[in-house]
């Protein structure tokens, strides 16, 4: 028996070593590089890069985009989750697959679709042009692209929570004479709040971090239509490594915060 135990221990540490080594190669060493490259010449170069007009324009465009997209997709996600979790109907599974579609469509293809709808040669192109509205290469296009790629998150996280909660409490509230809004605010929302927050968190992270779809529709005009992820690529292409890594480390911080909050929310949803 002791020999097999020893063997087990040896395999255990061997497997841990291989796994950690692999993760070091593709996750940990790159993550360390991100922080190192941003700060290895000290804090001042980072601070100077962050204090440029173009960087700040990118930050504010990123924040505006998230501020518009997160509420819209939260409302949609809640509606869709309710429709799917509280109703039995034909095509329910199909509806769920359709909601998940943006996860499997390449972001570039998503952007292409928007150009074919709202671009100069698109379906609504002439109409928009005569009305003087610019969608592609402007904020509306960035918003539409971001809405597309972040569409599934809230619905996806809320559906299982709603299903697990069941409709007993809602029906009880209804028989006691509560109105639909009251039921939603007083009964449903408190029950699903952690799952909802989780979905909102993921939506926000993707909204602030989307690159591909936004790159296609934004035209990447620096200082005007470049969000922070676009800014990273543009500045890197101009060989401004410090600028690129300064912006990247800010986005990296956002990702780290997202992961920490995600971990907290996961514990909450599991304990309740």
């Amino acid at each position, binding site marked *: 028996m002791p020999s097999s135990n020893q063997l087990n221990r040896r*395999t255990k540490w061997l*497997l*841990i070593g*291989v*796994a*950690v080594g*692999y*993760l070091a*190669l*593709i*996750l940990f*060493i*790159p993550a360390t*590089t*991100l922080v190192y490259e941003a700060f290895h010449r000290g804090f001042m170069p980072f601070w100077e890069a962050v204090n440029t007009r173009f960087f700040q324009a990118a930050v504010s465009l990123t924040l505006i985009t998230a501020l518009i997209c997160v509420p819209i997709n939260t409302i949609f996600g809640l*509606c869709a989750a*309710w*429709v799917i979790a509280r109703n039995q109907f034909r095509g329910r599974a199909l*509806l769920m*697959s*359709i909601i998940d*579609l*943006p996860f*499997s*469509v*390449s*972001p*570039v*293809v998503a952007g*292409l*679709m*928007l150009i*074919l*709808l709202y671009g100069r*040669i698109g*379906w609504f192109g002439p109409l928009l042009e005569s009305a003087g509205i610019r969608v592609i290469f402007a904020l509306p296009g960035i918003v*539409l692209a971001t809405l*597309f790629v972040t569409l599934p998150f809230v619905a996806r996280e809320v559906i299982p929570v709603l299903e697990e909660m069941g409709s007993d409490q809602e029906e009880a509230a209804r028989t006691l004479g509560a109105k639909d*809004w009251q039921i939603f605010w007083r009964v449903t929302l408190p029950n699903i709040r952690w799952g909802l927050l989780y979905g909102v968190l993921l939506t926000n992270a993707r909204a602030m*971090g989307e*690159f*591909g779809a936004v*790159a*296609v529709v934004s035209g990447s005009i620096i200082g005007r239509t470049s969000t922070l*992820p*676009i800014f*990273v*690529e543009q500045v*890197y292409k101009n060989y401004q490594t410090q600028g*690129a890594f300064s912006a*990247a480390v800010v*986005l*990296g911080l*956002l*990702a*780290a915060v*997202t*992961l*920490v909050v*995600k971990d907290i929310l996961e514990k909450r949803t599991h304990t309740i």
Partner: protein
Amino acid sequence: MNSFLSSSFNNNLKHISIPKLPISIPWFVTLGYLVLMLLLPIAALITKSLTLGVDEFWRIATQPLSLSAYSVTFITALAAGLINGVMGTLVAWVLVRYEFPGRKIIDAAIDLPFALPTSVAGLVLATVYSERGWIGQLFAPFGIRISFTRVGVFIAMLFISLPFIVRTLQPVLQEMEKEIEEAAWSLGASSWQTFSRVLLPPLIPPILTGIALGFSRAVGEYGSVVIIASNIPFRDLIAPVLVFQRLEQYDYAGATVIGTVLLMASLVLLLVINFLQQWGRRYAIK
């Protein structure tokens, strides 16, 4: 017939839009939003493809440049999916079964590729794996270049597809009872037999699901690859980057055709993933 249609249409309208029935507001929002945000864009893409005609579509879809872009995309993504199928399984196993210092942090870090913007991933990987980068310089003396080659594309795809396999497998491993394994041991099975006859079979559906999810993500990936690759045609140019380049050249027909091929590929993959998930569920019940 006509009146019947219009009356049922009116009934539907009543159900959908009259605010006195707030119950149907979610239906209205859900269906309306999906049509506007998803179905309309997809319809625009497909209509544009159809207006090209079959011959023209086929000609563009099978141009040598297009074919090489598909092969770079799909073969590299498949390689990344398969490597992560093995390494991701190992990582999931280590995280679920073993207790060791730093386990929780490593577990949380697995989601980094989900949370990190793809342009940041591309920037960082391109730097680390460049000739002067921390990892790239170890390979440079052997004449192996990683960044700005197809190997770089492979590394980026490894990065972005890793969480799919680990996260699909972890819950399955957690549910697997250790007793079965111990029973096999105590009945005299060798560790290889325990692994291949007892542990592996129920893991195959989730491993394949994870590989398919990771592959699907890698096929559509743009941000990290466009930065780490040199994007030279016939060398390391992937299909999504080709779509982007076509759009930059205002070649809408070219972009549409390759975009449609990519869309079809992702729809097929979606079906495969659904099938694999159902297979896995059936396995879990048995």
